């Protein structure tokens, strides 16, 4: 029997290390007590996790495409400022959301175009747009928080849908939309292909450059929506509110088992990564651990997961 006539069986993929580690972290937090499992704290967790979850969804796609978006936090801050300014100018929430989406989209398309059309390294491109977005937000606000937005947005933030708080509902909707995009549309297949073998996509006659831009554009749009949550929570828009949040998002994606190479990634892994980071932060807060040490803990967690995942690397030269 020749080699290619041999049967090839489907082999389910190994679970990423975040699954057991996430369970350990959550169990540890529950057992540590200090009111972690109280309904009130669980509610808080949902609110804390929602913006991070939104950022990490497009970040998963971006990293799968062998990219990176360092500008996500700064763009989100700018979106929030744009939203705040138009609310303060007396516009309704619809207009404010449109303005925010436009700002996010502009930065997303810029990132994507520079990466896709000019072949510039995503790290450098998004470091640049990070600076631009942050600068724009500061210039637009003179460095001060925008307030006087009216009651509309904070009412929206406090609203519930079938018992689910608004921010959690929006975050879950983002997950659902991203899941459908990644696993049930052509766009999703092309995300895997751009990261795994871009030439194959081009040879298949697909305009890979456009889809590559679309990945970053999607990130910008999600930032535009997430600005609703940030602005609503404080009923104000602060120009540096989300600076640095991209690092937690990148950490969540990496924890979830998404690789910077070959277009390997899992959306559910990123959700687990978000949950783990949020729970860890929250539990350490309750235990009175200072925030600088929390960052160390997250760093240790990432290293542990990466070491375990790479030790189990599934890629082998031939059939195993």
């Amino acid at each position, binding site marked *: 029997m020749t*080699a290619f*006539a041999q049967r*090839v069986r489907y*082999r389910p993929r190994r679970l990423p290390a975040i699954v057991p580690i996430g369970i350990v972290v959550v169990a540890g937090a529950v057992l540590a007590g200090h009111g972690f499992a109280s309904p009130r704290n669980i509610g808080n967790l949902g609110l804390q996790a929602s913006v991070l979850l939104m950022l990490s969804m497009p970040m998963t796609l971006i990293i799968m495409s062998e990219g990176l978006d360092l500008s996500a936090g700064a763009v989100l801050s700018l979106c929030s400022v744009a939203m705040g300014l138009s609310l303060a100018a007396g516009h309704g929430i619809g207009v404010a959301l449109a303005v925010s989406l436009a700002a996010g989209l502009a930065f997303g398309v810029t990132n994507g175009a520079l990466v896709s059309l000019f072949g510039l390294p995503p790290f450098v491109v998004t470091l640049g747009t990070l600076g631009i977005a942050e600068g724009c937000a500061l210039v637009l606000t003179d460095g001060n928080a925008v307030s006087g937005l009216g009651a509309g947005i904070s009412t929206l933030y406090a609203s519930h849908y079938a018992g689910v708080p608004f921010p959690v509902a929006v975050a879950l909707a983002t997950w659902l939309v991203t899941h459908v995009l990644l696993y049930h549309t052509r766009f999703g297949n092309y995300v895997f292909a751009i990261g795994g073998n871009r030439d194959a*996509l081009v*040879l*298949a006659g697909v305009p890979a450059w456009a889809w590559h831009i679309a990945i970053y554009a999607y990130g910008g749009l999600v930032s535009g929506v997430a600005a609703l949550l940030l602005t609503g929570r404080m009923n104000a828009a602060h120009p540096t509110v989300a600076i640095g949040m991209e690092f937690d998002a990148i950490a969540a994606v990496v924890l979830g088992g998404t690789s910077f190479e070959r277009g390997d990634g899992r959306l559910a892994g990123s959700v687990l990564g978000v949950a783990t980071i949020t729970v860890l932060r929250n539990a350490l807060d309750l235990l009175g651990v200072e925030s600088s040490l929390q960052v160390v803990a997250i760093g240790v967690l990432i290293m542990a997961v990466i070491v375990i995942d790479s030790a189990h690397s599934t890629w082998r030269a031939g059939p195993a």
Partner: protein
Amino acid sequence: MTVVDSPADATAADAPLLSLVGISKTFPGVRALEGVSLDLYGGEVHMLLGENGAGKSSLVKVLYGAYRADAGTILHAGRPVEIHRPADARRLGIAVIFQEFSLVPFLDLAQNIYLGREPCRRVTRLIDHARMHRDARTLLDALGLDYDTRALPVHLGVAQQQMVEIAKALSQRARILVMDEPTAALSDREADALFAVIRQLRADGVAIAYISHRMQEVLDLGDRVTVLRDGRRVATMPRAEASADALIRMMVGRPVGAVYQRRGYAEPGVPVLEVRGLRTATGVNGVDLSVRAGEIVGLSGLVGAGRTEVARAVFGADPIEAGDVRVFGAPARGDPARMAARGVALIPENRKQQGLALARSTQDNLLAASLWKLFPRGRYRTRQARARARDLIERLRIVPAQPRRLVRLLSGGNQQKVVIGKWLSADCRLFIFDEPTRGIDVGAKSDIYALIEDLVMRGAAVLLISSELSEIVNVCDRAYVMRGGRVAGELPRARLSEENILRLAMHEA
């Protein structure tokens, strides 16, 4: 010149499915294709033959829209068509299977087969996974392949990935299938099974253009054969009129001395490199060779014959499984650093990645391998370093003659000179060159050859790995030809010709 424009196979359709007429393509400094015409008929396997740089890959690239021809027309079923993009080729039913596979590692087989043509539900535009897997199943079954359509390409061997590529081409209902050395990575038995599939496709009326370097397969499988040389079509003939000898004679044909004229041949000295029964896990399967001081020994063969692997094993970059390698009379079992310290230089094929620090100056690169020799106490002396660099620049005729010039800004030929200078400065006495003139323009080539000859005149020994037959024939004292991980034969100077090299490299028997 034999040019036959009707198919040899009587069952083939009357009009060609695809005709290339007078296709030309020029790059700065290179005429890749010059007025090449080619007819592809349904139900024929059309073999494309030619040595490296003959224009086969360029022709394929024109066919699927990666290159746009400067001149010439493409006729599809008799009507002129433009192929500007891969998508155009695909619409015309042209599919290409490349040597490097175009599978996406983390999409399953069904997703890979239908990449870019995923069946979508009507209203929602969501992918119809059920239908996609069903269609993929049908397709694989038709090829007799029992692969789970949910498996990932990582779970497949090379031959199996090749079959998925074929399935992918068939799923496009390709009527014109171009295969670029499909058996290069296959074992003999796998190749036989592939041939069975190809014969089936031919019986189904598909036109197959098949690039090969293996004479046996050209003669076994081909209905017609076209030979290309230096971007031109030399001949197209039916299989019945082709013989291995005649085809090889058509592939070669440059006069000796046209590329480089040796100044002289020295009497070889003591053996510097002796290899006996070398085997490696990387595919070297019993190699014997020797290089003596004062001689340039060629190591020829087709791509994939195991030449680079021999060089890497000798240099200690890959482990040796069996055999005896002696360098300067002593056994060579060591890592590259130890081999370099003993006076062995490997000048790798990919100089930009493996041989140069592109962001550093000419001087820094020239001295990179000899810093400890120059400054044994570890203290860098600028003036001394500058003087040494100037010496080397002059001796190697590096242009521009500026030690502080960034290597990145030099031409390919001058970059190669810097790599050579780096090892020259380290007093190496055995030089292994792997494709030293790839991507270098003609003028700089003869400079490189002159440098290599200088090396042996000073008593060094050179092993020259090259796919360019003319390079081996014009530059070397003698040559070994490899095929399938072994030395297929040795050619002394009297018998060193392009034709003899090809005969050894291509004959399967």
